[in-house]
């Protein structure tokens, strides 16, 4: 642990949205606001999607491997998020740093809802992700392909919806609408079993 770190101030901040550039700008602003005055070594950082390189690998797959469905995309997003939590988020929090996770869970859930996937499946999928201490949803400056192309929603919509620009646009717009509307109230976590136990 860094000598300057203050474990009590470690925070997990979630920034979600379909517009990748706007999300990144908001994440940097949230990090700066949260860590202003902190020593350089204790400021933390921003965790961005595809830190695991899964989607980069997907991008170079042969065309005849077939397009992934929204469910497959979200399973891959969850695998990437598990990687980010393991290598970026938890170690930083343990050192008392603030981490802005951009995007986090809400973007993926909104994308899944837009694609017609059941809310309970989506909630279960991300059960392993800890609750953030702060949440921000960034409104898109525009849901055109250029504004979202670097983000998960743009990537997933382009691959899932195939080459049809209209279908892609419909999915992106619906994701934005679900994000604005927010998630329906979730059942209380009380009594929920932990995801991992020590193997007997």
């Amino acid at each position, binding site marked *: 642990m860094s000598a300057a770190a203050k474990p009590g101030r470690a925070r997990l901040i979630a920034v979600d949205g379909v517009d990748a550039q706007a999300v990144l700008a908001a994440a940097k602003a949230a990090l700066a606001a949260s860590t202003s005055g902190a020593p350089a070594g204790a400021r933390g950082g921003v965790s961005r999607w595809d830190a695991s390189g899964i989607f980069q*690998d997907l991008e170079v797959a042969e065309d005849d491997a*077939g397009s992934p*469905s929204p469910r497959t995309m979200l*399973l891959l997003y969850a695998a990437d998020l598990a990687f980010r939590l393991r290598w970026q988020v938890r170690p930083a929090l343990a050192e008392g740093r603030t981490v802005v996770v951009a995007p986090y869970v809400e973007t993926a859930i909104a994308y899944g809802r837009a694609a017609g996937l059941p809310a309970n499946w989506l909630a279960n*999928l991300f059960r392993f992700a800890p609750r953030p201490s702060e949440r921000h949803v960034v409104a898109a400056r525009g849901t055109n392909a250029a504004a979202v192309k670097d983000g998960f929603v743009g990537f997933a919509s382009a691959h899932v919806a195939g080459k049809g620009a209209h279908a892609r646009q419909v999915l992106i717009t619906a994701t934005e609408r679900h994000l604005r509307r927010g998630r329906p109230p979730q059942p209380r976590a009380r009594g929920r*079993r*932990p995801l991992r*136990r020590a*193997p007997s």
Partner: protein
Amino acid sequence: MPSVQASLQRARRLARQRFTDPTRRRGLLVAFEGPDGSGKTTQRKLFKTWLKSEGYDVVTTKWNSSDLIKPIIKSRKAVRALSPEEFSLLHGADFRHRVEQVILPALWEGKLVIADRFLFTGLARDVARGLDLDWVLKLYQPLLWPDLVFYFAVSPVTSGKRVTATRLPTYYEAGQDITDVDDPVESYQRFIARVIREYESLALIFNFITVDAEQSIAEQHRQIRDLFIEGQRRPWSAWNVDAVAEWLALSGKRR
């Protein structure tokens, strides 16, 4: 999104019509499950040869074999970079992709699909790695239930002897990511005992047909043929309607 829901409703009706039409041979899904070294692959090959001789159009699908996801898993296994959650999620993605690209299209065409390992492999291994069964099972929703599941039962000792007779088990095969045991053979022995325990629970819960994989190859094959002839007359499981409907809605199939 009303149009998505309406499309799923239409797809459900279409799925029921297709799989319960008495005038056509419906697709059948047969899964072979069991620990490594239980002889599944040998039996699967014999079964496939026999089915072809009986006039069936047979498609085989193996665990962790989708062209899209397999390379992603392989490269991460090679550098031992997967946590139990990542291992589980990536195998779930591989399975889902094969369901949509290989299994359902073949069943829709009335073919017989043999799955050399099915989702129960994911459940047994992930739970043996300490993950919650409920979480893992829901990853595989909407569930696609095989018409028959043959479970090849062997003891941990037999599995260990057969697997290590010619080679060392790989890092994840031996469960070294969770046992903290350096020796792959010793680690395999511990891990496979956990996997078999989970398989035995699943066999009870999901009503697998257990084949005694300590018997001779010929005896097992004869038993599988008899059980298949008996089991293929089972009606289509209506539990599969959601899985088929989602695939139909995605693929835009009309009939």
